[in-house]
């Protein structure tokens, strides 16, 4: 087990190196350079040339990449081209907000998704099951930004129950209650699609498991229905569900980019959007590295969870 974890952690190196090369290339090869965007339509050729040289953009791409990598290896992600702030501090600062949002989204999608799925599986073709199927179709087909705006108009503008944007009230506030009230809309928006995916998968896996012989045995020995469904049914259905939830974690990290933009959530997603629009190369590269690292670690955690869920699984 220890050797397995060590090997997986070691594998991080080539994965992150690959991610960094792809991001670097995509950023640098897509049209438009930071100097051009920074100076806008008033740029003179002389100002552009000077700025490009100052930003270190005149060297060949491989040289720029190697130079960047040499710093990264020493734990220095460089400074943002625009704000001049150190990238690592900036990204970590903003990543906390993203972590709060995605964790909350993940909890919502797991709890509600599994709950709905189990309930539907217990009474297939009931009103609840059909309702949840319709809601799933709805949830899975709505774009995040549209759903976000609809919820915002409904709950902030019309009903006035929840704040429309941001993470804390601009003055006062700052406590947990303030945070939660700002978190509700973006977290629900972010989780909507995942909830439906988890719910549909839970339903089908549960239906399969509930048809197994050992469930009939459990019922025959007189266990109460709840114990049958939860302890014998759900636990055995969890392996595929946990896999999907692990994948959803990555999806939520990606979806956070849109959700954060809609709700002015001060996370790494809004930071990346700013960075991409401004071609702030070091900033985007740093942010992607941190997000990629998180995604890989979440997947490792999911793989380790299998051992707990199904003792037959062994890692050598």
């Amino acid at each position, binding site marked *: 087990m220890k050797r397995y974890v060590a090997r997986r952690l070691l594998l991080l190196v080539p994965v992150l190196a690959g991610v960094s090369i792809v991001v670097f290339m995509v950023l640098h090869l897509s049209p438009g350079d930071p100097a051009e965007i920074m100076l806008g339509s008033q*740029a003179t050729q002389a100002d552009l040339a000077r700025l490009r040289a100052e930003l270190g953009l005149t060297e060949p791409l491989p040289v720029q990449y190697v130079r960047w990598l040499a710093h990264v290896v020493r734990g220095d992600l460089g400074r943002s081209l625009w704000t001049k702030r150190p990238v690592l501090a900036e990204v970590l600062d903003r990543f906390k907000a993203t972590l709060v949002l995605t964790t909350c989204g993940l909890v919502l999608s797991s709890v509600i998704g599994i709950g709905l799925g189990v309930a539907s599986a217990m009474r297939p073709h009931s009103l609840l099951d059909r309702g949840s199927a319709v809601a799933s179709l709805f949830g899975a087909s709505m774009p995040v930004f549209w759903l976000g705006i609809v919820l915002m108009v409904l709950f902030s503008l019309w009903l006035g129950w929840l704040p429309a944007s941001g993470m804390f009230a601009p003055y006062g506030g700052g406590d947990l209650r303030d945070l*939660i009230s700002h978190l509700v809309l973006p977290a629900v928006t972010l989780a909507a699609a995942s909830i439906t995916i988890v719910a549909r998968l839970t339903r089908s896996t549960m239906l399969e498991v509930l048809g197994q012989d050992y469930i009939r045995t459990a019922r025959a020995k007189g266990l109460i229905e709840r114990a049958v469904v939860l302890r014998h049914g759900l636990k055995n259905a969890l392996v595929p569900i946990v896999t999907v939830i692990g994948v959803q974690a990555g999806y939520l990290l990606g979806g956070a980019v849109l959700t954060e933009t*809609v709700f002015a959530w001060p*996370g790494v997603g809004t930071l990346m959007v700013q960075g991409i629009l401004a071609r702030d190369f070091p900033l985007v590269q740093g942010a992607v590295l941190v997000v990629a690292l998180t995604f890989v670690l979440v997947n490792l955690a999911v793989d380790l969870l299998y051992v707990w869920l199904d003792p037959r699984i062994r890692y050598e």
Partner: protein
Amino acid sequence: MIAMLMFAALIVGVVPGVAGAQPAGTLVVGLVAEPVNLDPPQVTDLNSNRVSRRIAETLVAFAEDSTKIVPGLAESWTISNDGLQYTFKLRKGIAFHDGTPLDAAAVKFSIERQFNPDHPANKLGKYPFANYFFGNVKAVEVLSPERVAFLLKEPRASFLAVLAAGAASIVSPTAVMKWGNDYALHPVGTGPFKFASWDRGQRVILEKNPSYWKHPVKVDRVIYRPIVEDQARLTEFLTGTLDVIVGVPPDFVGQLESNPKIQLLKQVGAHVWYLGINNQKKPFDDKRVRQALNYAVNKDAIVRDVLKGTGAPSKGPVLPGTWGADAALKAYPYDPARAKKLLAEAGYPNGFSTTLWVPESGSGMQSPVAMSTVMQSNLKAVGVTVTLQTMEWGAYLAKLRSKEQDLFALSWMAGSEDPDMVLYPLLHSSQWTPNGPNRALYKNPRFDELLTQARQVTDQAKRAELYREAQRLLVEDAPWVFVDHEVQIAALSKRVTGFKLHPSFDLRVETISLK
């Protein structure tokens, strides 16, 4: 899901009414994006400019409701007869927010750091417009603690307008040297507000400067919140958590106009949006073709239906109503029949095909794609088949340097009403791309001569005369299709009084008092 949300709202205990009123004395402003950098000469975007101009000030300033030059940190100035030396007398007794006195050395420091490679602060920042603004400055000389002189390489009558630009702000040399690379995050000036804090992605907070030299500041604190999504910004405003929003999207204007609980302000800005034409390329090298395009485009319809009143139709690049504008200038009316006739005379009775490059968005670009689509159909009606090519802003600007453009959509924020700040860079032949921003590759020797002359004489009446002639030439030559000047829109809550929009697109919240 709705049940879930109601449940969540109940848990939070926020039913009903989340939005509490702002504390007395605190003004909350919604920005369309987060400021990027608060060191004035490193500022390249409107949001940073709107914040940093509260903190640092310039030697000369713009008047309250126009971009006429009035005294700022300098109480008076003289210009030498040859126009090569500008000498300023500084106000006495002004100090920066950190206590450093404002003196001639601070002026020299603030300006020379941008273009002098040997200056101790030159490497501490990237000064993108050093050449554009100060390429003409030979040196800044300290004559005494209160007197400072700018020596120019050649005369430029609009130099005072340059010194009123944000990039010419005077900052505390002590603070620049103390914070080094991080100065942009700890700006110190003489302005009505002091920088207090910046929570990245959330807010920038400024506190009032109690010893502001110009007038007492009535607001204790300004909080700037970046909210990129239009609907979110509007919702925050309508629920009362924002006091001021600017950059209201055209589609929301009608809704706000009919809302009795708010105030809506409009002000045309020193901006011009134009359809550039490559004057050197066939068939556009024929003046009649360019005039035909001007007759063919229905700018009134664009302003009314696309911009919904957030633009004013333009007759030329110079802002109407300012000293350099020609009130008698004739505009091109919407006249498709005349356009067809001109095209036939130029040898294109059946029209021709061409391409129009459009950025998806960009600073000052309003609604580029929708506006261009209307122009496309206008031109189709006179036989000119236009293919739209949309591009990302940065890629678009780079591509315009190729000189391969036929038609292109672009705008310009001069920041000042001085005609030199718009005519010279955009239309003087010395400014042809890639060296300057004349991307229409327009050249008319008489026009060039008029502009050069108007830079050399300092008498404003004489300059105005020269510019009037230049504008008449311009309308006749039609190097662009003149489209509109942006009308800025701000929405204010009822508690805000004393605020005015400014044609320079600045957001002068220091004049506000709160009820």
